């Protein structure tokens, strides 16, 4: 028998928070949110409602999208009070 060390599993599945453990989920997207910055009033509703944490909040409270992980659910566009987010079909 060779002395290969094997990592032991815990009693049940434990997952630690880590970015992208399911891969680049942005590839699942059909519609992509596009932010029209001139209409944005920095209310941060999109940042609050995004279920995936893929709205990036900048220091001046402006926002952008992490397209590597955004699945395109459209919740941000639905919540935006000034219609500053447009869902555009992926090419």
């Amino acid at each position, binding site marked *: 028998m060779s002395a290969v060390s094997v990592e032991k*599993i*815990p*009693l*049940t*599945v*434990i*997952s*630690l*928070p880590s970015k992208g453990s*399911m891969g680049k989920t942005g590839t699942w997207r059909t519609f992509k949110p596009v932010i029209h910055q001139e209409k944005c009033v920095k209310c941060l509703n999109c940042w609050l409602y995004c279920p995936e944490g893929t709205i990036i909040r900048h220091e001046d409270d402006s926002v952008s999208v992490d397209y590597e992980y955004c699945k395109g659910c459209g919740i941000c566009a639905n919540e935006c009070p000034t219609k500053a987010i447009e869902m555009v079909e992926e090419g």
Partner: protein
Amino acid sequence: MAVAKAKGKVEVLTGNYAAAWGAKLARVEVVAAYPITPQTTIIEKLAEFVEKGELKAKYIRVESEHSAMAACIGASAVGARAFTATSSHGLLLMHEMCWWAAGARLPIVMTIVARAIAPPWTIWNEHSDILDERDTGWLIMLAEDNQEVLDGVIQAFKIAEDERVLLPVMVNEDAFILSHTAMPVEIPDQEVVDEFLPPRSDKPYILDPDNPFTHGNLTYPDYYMEFRYLMERSMEAAKQVIAEVDEEYYRLTGRRYGGLVEKYRCEDADVAIVAAGSSAGDAKEAADRLREEGYKVGVFRIRFVRPWPHEEVREVLGRMKAVAVVDRSISFTKGGILFTDVTSSLYGSTPLVHGFVTGLGGRDITVNHFVDIVKKVYSEIEAGEKGAKWEFYNVKWEVLP
């Protein structure tokens, strides 16, 4: 070993109040429950304990049994000792969450008041509800009387929280026969229970917002089987833990129940009655009566259905001439659920195994029925019958269309 003299006060308690007392003495920290007949008075009594300040527990009122178990899972995952109780359709609604509790390895304890399932609508005793849970990964204990219900809940927490086990436990009492029938029950002193059952450890894990992690996430085919094997290993290890816990409880209270199974007059018996739950008491009385008539009869009470007492079945029942398995459940075209488990464990050994499906929907199983069953089995031994068979017993054949 010195055995403590039974010390505690004796009160006349229903099975349901005995269950509530067991949970109180175990110092449960969270009770999440939904009422259902005939379980309701358990959680009513616990609500009263909490309201009066006699039990320091968070009492969560939920909108369904599914949510009751979900709340217990959450509570147990943050380290609380969690308890609930349900019955029949409530347990069926909770079924999905029962798998979650076991797979997440959370030491929750739940009292089941075994009740038949509709339709036709019914509230009376049968074991089909609790035995439906036998593959979930819960340990399943069936109490014979109200004292065992109280002691069983306390023992169940000790077993569930043992690091070798870390699986949830159901403690069964039979609907109405125990749940709403009162008998003198010794309530152990709190100090005795505290010595037996210390506060919960941090096993298997405690969710903590400052050190975040989740449990039960997506597992691919390359690891799922290993987690199921770990459950099997723990369930197997629980057999030893159950025996140890029963002995420790005996040292502290003077009461023990035999661990996985209770063997009553089995040593020199030719025929054993296999029963679980309250009817085992009637079976013992029948055995006594039959012995006076010269029949060598014993009672093999299945106390734990999971983990299954395979070794005890082979050792004790394997040397009988015949075994009469009296089931309060039916797996259609296959017989009673205990019957199927007993016959599979006895594979390759010689006794005739005769299963009797009876007592469904609360129909009484009396001492006379057990006497009749045993005499029937004796006549089959004399006729040289072998193998396994089963039948519906005590059916009104004349009313069938």
